[in-house]
């Protein structure tokens, strides 16, 4: 009887402790990253390179996803609006959906896979091959050298990537509307402008910034926590992608509840 109950209870207790320990480690890691911000000489030289890798090189995949999302949105909207609702509402739906939701979230999820996995595997490999220990031996702060430039690059470049994604998504919806639907450019533009508010853009950029912070920070944290061999790197990569994706969706709901 004791054995029957003790095992699940032990599992719950162990999980709670691990979760608390994980939060604690993540908090300490974040605090060390904030402290490392003052070491500009270390992370400054890495920033541009990380911006290029995490941001500029992510633009094609973000634009690709956004383009097809815009096409699908336009077609599905026209399918839905057939009948009572005027077709120019396709423009309103494409623009609103791309700017408020799909642009930031799909881009964030895509970059969680691409960027988060990249960071976690790179830093995890450095961890298991003791390169991070070597940096410490060379008097480099590994957080300032590895984490801060990546997190800052993510925070700065994610909004840029999302802006491209929004623009391309709307443009794809427009091209689809005038080519595949009985919709003219003025009608589509009327729909796009119908319910547009500049707040929509701010909302989209705030979400993108928070997604950039979460994806890069979680990627770095997972990589830093890798211990063991190649398998640990794989686990860290998986953890980074899964955790980043979950946090993106949680943040999406959070911002919707707070800002809308």
């Amino acid at each position: 009887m004791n054995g029957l109950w003790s095992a699940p209870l032990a599992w719950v207790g162990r999980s709670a402790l691990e979760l608390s320990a994980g939060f604690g480690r993540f908090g300490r890691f974040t605090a060390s990253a904030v402290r490392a911000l003052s070491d500009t000489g270390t992370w400054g030289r890495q920033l541009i390179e990380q911006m290029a890798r995490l941001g500029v090189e992510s633009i094609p995949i973000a634009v690709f996803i956004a383009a097809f999302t815009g096409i699908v949105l336009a077609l599905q909207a026209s399918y839905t609006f057939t009948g009572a609702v005027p077709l120019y509402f396709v423009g309103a739906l494409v623009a609103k959906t791309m700017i408020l939701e799909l642009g930031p979230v799909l881009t964030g999820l895509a970059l969680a896979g691409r960027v988060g996995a990249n960071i976690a595997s790179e830093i995890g490999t450095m961890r298991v091959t003791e390169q991070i220990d070597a940096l410490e031996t060379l008097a480099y702060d590994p957080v300032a050298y590895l984490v801060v430039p990546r997190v800052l690059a993510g925070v700065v470049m994610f909004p840029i990537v999302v802006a491209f994604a929004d623009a391309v998504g709307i443009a794809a919806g427009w091209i689809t509307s005038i080519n595949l639907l009985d919709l003219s450019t003025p009608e589509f533009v009327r729909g796009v402008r119908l319910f547009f508010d500049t707040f929509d853009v701010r909302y989209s950029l705030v979400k993108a910034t928070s997604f950039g912070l979460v994806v890069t920070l979680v990627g770095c944290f997972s990589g830093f926590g890798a211990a063991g061999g190649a398998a640990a790197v794989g686990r860290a990569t998986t953890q980074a992608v899964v955790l980043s994706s979950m946090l993106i969706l949680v943040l999406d709901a959070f911002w919707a509840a707070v800002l809308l």
Partner: protein
Amino acid sequence: MKKRTDVVVGAAILAGIVVIVVGTLWLKGSGFGREEIELEARFREVGQLLVGNTVKLRGVPIGRVEEISFERGGDGVLVKMRIDRDAPLPEDPVVILSPESLFGDWQAEIHPRAQFPRYAFAESAEPGVLPGYSLPDISRLTAVADEIAGNLAVLTDRVETAFTEQTAENIRQAIENIQIVSERLTGLVATQQEAVEEVARRLNETTATLSEAAFAVRRTMEQVDSAVANGEIAAIVGNVASASAKFDSLSMELLRASAEFRAIAFRADSAMQAMGAIAARLQAGEGSLGLLLQDSTLYADLLRTNAILQALLKDIQENPRKYIKLEIF
């Protein structure tokens, strides 16, 4: 290699910023390089109007709503709009807010006031602030329609309640009765038509007679008029005045006679009262005459005395010397 990376990142960031700024301005509908002016209008309320809604003139979009705010120290709402400088505003312009479509998007339209003389525009004491009027939105119209529909439903229910099979049968019966009455009326009209025609004929004759009478009256009046003109009426009036004076005199005489007659009547009344008293005494057998009337013995004595006296007179006539002895000296 490092420099190339810097350039690429810089270009990406700049391009991203340009996309954000230009995209936002484009979506907002801001006119690039277009000269605009600011226009303000006052409303009592603005319905579903939002910042960014279209401003139209004669159906042509000429700008957008820039700001919506409460009027300071008043009960109105001020709406600022940015419109094309070249837009040809009408004389005495007013702004009307109305739904642009059935889906909640509104617009501000600029019109000449004369086009809507019955609208109660919200005037502003501030110079340069246009008067505004907000049309009822779809929800209000829908609410009214809903109320009407509710009333119709109630009415329908009542009609359904009232309109039973029995009611239908009664109505059918009533229709049949009306039909019968109508047929009877038709017959009656046909019957009475001749009488009506006769009446009409007589009416015509009467009218002719009346016309003749009127003609005669008119002729008489003409004669009267002529008589008046000739002074005959004046003479008649003079005679009437004279007769009236005489009549007044006669009347006075009659009054006097009446007074005398009243005195005579009074005296007659006194005499009649005295006669009444005498009659009463006679009736009561008082006095000689009363006794004479009431007592037959006295009458008989009187008759006997009379007879004796007659015999005595006869004897005196026959034998005067028996009774009268005349001696001279």
